């Protein structure tokens, strides 16, 4: 297998890496860089546990080849410093087993970066690519509502 040289910025840090041509972005993050907050739940883009933000948009890192990320900016859960979202998740009880949580936080972050006043439907839509088997989603939805409200300058409703 040939190696391919890529320049990629991950969580604000520039990396110059040599990657196998069939390596997926998720494998690069987990196996090479040990950024294990990105989870693999299905390997076919159905669960969203491997969600990362790539050039400002959420993507499934299991459906991106590492070489495609050349010249891209990637943000993983390890690069999220948004304590408002994280604390809302903790306080609202939006975390159970936690395996979907990093992906959910990234989906929430991506939504709130674009829309600080999402309605219920928009929130549900924003996390509709992230499966959760524990919480039934409701507490995740309320966590995102709460985070949005705090970000808008209100208090925690």
């Amino acid at each position, binding site marked *: 297998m040939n190696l391919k040289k890529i320049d990629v910025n991950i969580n604000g840090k520039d990396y110059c890496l040599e990657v196998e041509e069939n390596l997926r972005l998720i494998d690069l993050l987990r196996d090479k860089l040990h950024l294990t907050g990105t989870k693999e739940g299905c390997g076919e883009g159905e669960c969203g546990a491997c969600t990362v933000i790539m050039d400002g948009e959420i993507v499934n890192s299991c459906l991106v080849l590492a070489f495609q990320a050349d010249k891209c900016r990637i943000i993983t859960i390890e690069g999220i410093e948004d304590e408002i979202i994280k604390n809302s998740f903790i306080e609202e009880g939006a975390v159970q087993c936690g395996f979907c*949580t990093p992906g959910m936080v990234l989906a929430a972050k991506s939504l709130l970066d674009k829309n600080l006043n999402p309605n219920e439907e928009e929130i549900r839509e924003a996390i509709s690519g992230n499966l959760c088997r*524990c919480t039934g989603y409701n507490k995740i939805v309320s966590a995102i509502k709460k985070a949005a409200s705090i970000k808008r300058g209100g208090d925690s409703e």
Partner: protein
Amino acid sequence: MNELKIVGKSIKKIDAKDKVDGTAVYPQDIYLENMAFGVTIRSTRPHAYIKVDTKEAEKIDGVIKVFTYKDVPGKNHHGVVLKDHEVFASKKVRRIGDPIAFIVAETKEIAEYAKNFVKVEYEEIPAVFDPEEAMKEESPKVHDRDNVFYHFKIRRGDVERAFLECDVIVENVYKVPMVDHAFLQPEAGVAYLDEDGRVVVIASTQYPHFDQEEIAESLGVNKDMVRVLTPAVGGAFGGREDITVQIHLAIAALTLKRPVKTIYSREESFLAHSKRHAMKMYYKTGALKDGTLLALEAKIIGDSGAYASWAMNVLRKAAVHATGPYYIPNVKVDSFAVYTNNPFTGAMRGFGATQVPIAYEQQIDILAEKLGLTPIEIRLKNCFREGSETSTGQILEGFIPLERCIEELKSF
């Protein structure tokens, strides 16, 4: 009662911070020095005698060893109630997905590649997939015993006579399918030897102390020589009650004296763990004109698939809960757990008490409709209250707030 200060308060979940930060460690997140990687070879046939040849695979550069039943130092079995699972299938496979061999290689890629070189010869034998077929005497036997391995009965009052007194009787058959737990974290694990020579198995499990015993038995060592670590578990719902990765990893680590890791794909996860029991439920429920339930007769057949797992407990729980939370003086219930060559079934959220409401609640609604009662009225008329007797003769004491639960729905 004293005033409570912490119990009753929604304090923050103590493991939540690590989980939102992405730093919580699940078994797949562990990387150790000199760690080998294992992949499992599984049966592709539902019922067959097998011969396994690992020679070609073992010649591949980077393959360290291919483990089969011959490499199990202790007992080649496990199981939560009956020890009817094999660690590796020895003579025959009983379902698609039975583990046959465990390839350990320097890397995951090599192990995956080597899968193509483990030869499994199948001599297929007649199989049975329908539990009711499997109950027949002439049906192929999944194990060396009758396919019906559990029959539980409840006999209370006189059902036959009671049905004669009923003003209305409803009789139906309900079928529920197998379903998967679909916890988000596929099975994964790491095993290694610690400084004291103990085998350490890191895996997601619901019951580490039982795993410890089962691992020790298959390793042929005292259980103090086995240590089970359960870092973050990505959901379970009953699907992590049975052994999956644990014994394979322990045997490999003990034999090779180096860390070994395995991660199942989602597809393998579906193959590896149990399912919720599919059930066929024959229900006959009778009531008086005023809605008073008088008699219930039910036959519940649970498809246990190829292994027993928790089937006895599940079918027992199904039977005990077969009346629903209603007082019925005359009850006859028969529940059966039956082996077939389907995926094996076991614990899943509710444990047998989840399937039966689909039958008993529809029965109640149909009765209500026939009697001109509302669904709430018929339930209030019959629901368990303090002092009620269940179909097993158990007297419900203490706080039995079902009536209140139903009243709460009036405003819906």
